[in-house]
């Protein structure tokens, strides 16, 4: 790969910023972020990820983006996922099991209805920079 110039870096930033936003009418209907720090993995995040991949495959929802990130801070309530439907605020789900994420996939990701029983909160954390 050729080395970047400062302009290239800005282009990547703009493009990646656009891609990370799950926009209404965009390429994907939803983004599911599985929190996979050591704490999440120890609590079973790999099984959660596998269950989500299976749900996505069996329902044929190619427009659901599955991604992973690190610890979200609340280690005692792992495994945790964040579901972001296109054009809507992200929702954090906690204390998950594979059965719970299957239900979330069906009701929230496919049906559009937040499963409030497993939801911790809606929106994002305040970050300074």
């Amino acid at each position: 790969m050729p080395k970047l110039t400062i302009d290239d870096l800005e282009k990547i930033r703009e493009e990646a910023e656009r891609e990370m936003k799950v926009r209404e009418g965009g390429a994907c209907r939803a983004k599911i972020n599985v929190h996979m720090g050591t704490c999440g993995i120890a609590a079973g995040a790999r099984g959660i990820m596998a269950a989500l991949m299976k749900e996505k495959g069996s329902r044929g929802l190619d427009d659901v983006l599955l991604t992973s990130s690190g610890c979200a801070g609340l280690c005692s309530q792992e495994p945790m996922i964040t579901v972001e439907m296109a054009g809507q605020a992200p929702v954090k789900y906690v204390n998950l099991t594979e059965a719970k994420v299957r239900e979330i996939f069906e009701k929230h990701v496919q049906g559009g209805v937040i499963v409030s029983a497993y939801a911790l909160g809606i929106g994002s954390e305040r970050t300074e920079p």
Partner: protein
Amino acid sequence: MDEQATPTTYRLYLMVCAGTGCVSNHSFEIRTALETEIRKHGLEKEVSVVPTGCNGFCERGPILVVQPGDIFYQQLTVKDIPHLVEEHFLKGRPVAKLMYSPPAAKAPIPVLNDIPFFKKQVLIALRNRGLIDPEKIDEAIARGGYKALVKALTEMSPEKIISEVTLSGLRGRGGAGFPTGLKWQLVRNAISANGGRKYVVCNGDEGDPGAFMDRSILEADPHAVIEGMTIGAKAIGATEGFIYVRNEYPLAVERLGVALRQARDYGLLGADILGTGFDFDIQIKRGAGAFVCGEETALLASIEGRLGEPRPRPPYPAQSGLWGKPTCINNVETWANVPPIISRGSKWYSGIGTPTSKGTKVFSLVGKINNTGLVEVPMGITLREIIYDIGGGIPNGKAFKAVQTGGPSGGCIPKDQIDLPIDYESLSAAGSMMGSGGMVIMDEDTCMVDVARYFLSFTHDESCGKCTPCREGTKAMLDILTRITEGKGTEDDLPLLEELAQTIKDTALCGLGKTAPNPVLTTLRYFREEYEAHIRQKKCPARVCRQLNVYTIDPQICVEKGRGCDVCRRNCSSEAITGRKNEAHAVIQSKCIKCGVCYDVCAFGAVKVD
């Protein structure tokens, strides 16, 4: 619209939502299907299809409202339409299964920033936590990653970078709190013999029990550290850097490796970074898990491939570090704070915190606390806010007793100091220290003598053995503490412990030894009566030191409630319980080994511990 121009001529109006939400949910197809079916049944003179603007109920789209009657159909699919048209619009029987039924009083979902755990946190070092895929550099860049590097490489001189960091008030997050800008200045000023090479090092040898701040940053946002180190390298004039990270952090090592490769591929590391002519690269050095290697001189020795043992300072690494060259060594969290300081300026950063401790600090909240986790809070926040607001208090309605900050090098802070503000000075004044950020919460069931013994056994184990005060002193202290917890303590033990503690503090070679007595000194300072109870009454007030416990069985409860169930006798491994089914049981004290199994298995509360 023709339909709206002649409204009175129709029997039914089908309002199909054509808002963006419903359109992306295929409401146009629904409309087409409706019109097709209506024509098929010859209803086009009676039923009109009307596209409307956004109904506002997008989450249930596509939506169809039938007028008159306000019948609300939701989440329609094209294959529902033939049935719907035939049943409702032809035969007049509304289709209940396609209608919307409001959910029965479901609990409202709170906004994340209203949840106490998140509300009081200020994320600077953890700015990208849970938001980016740490293995995709583009996502880090999208969140502002490497912006500060561009600024540092193109607009700022090394002196300007250092003065920005100095003015920000950032202090080392590894524990001691040395001003970061001053350290950088010292390394910049230092003259490197033979060739002028200098190094930057990231200390990721996090070893305190219950601490996982550095691991979490490296796992969630490795680019924050890489960018910080590159800025630091430009400031002090280094071309090479090392990240020393424990091999017990496999995920951190892996993600760091991926991040370094991706940064190198983009030319954000290596020769001529971003075409600015600045060269810098970073290597990972994996530590084998010796706690002492978190001490800077031992860490540098370990990077060089020598035995991980500390050496006397001065000279400090700023003068003579890796291979005798000036070396700037900072902790993971310190490096992660650098990019935001450069991007947003020292003024913004120094506006957060207290007069002497600026910015935020990451803590890992563990022990007897409801919300175990990783928190980043502004300096100056009180322990009470961390424990009760963010941490959610103590589980099972127990009372808060003390909090250990600074790991095995820190000390216990008792409940009457719970309103202590968190900053370097006030924690030191309380006999503890900021440390790297482990915060172990203890409840009323914790024995403070046992806690001190635990931490001493840790430092004794981890002592490298190079200097006598640490090697022999921690052993002597541990022996005394163990004796006290076994009920064999004497009145002379406490003054002896204090004398040993002071001697080790004064004479040990490195920080490990110098701080090892802190847990003993602080528990003696705040919980002396617990030590005295162990020594004089041979009692452990928290009932933790089992050798001091006496187990008895209340014969009345045993018979009346438990009908002499015999479970305790059957579970007693030393045959120290007598009794038969339906009769009162009793403990033979001379045979009892104080294992506590009878107490644990009795379902009727008949076994008493004193």
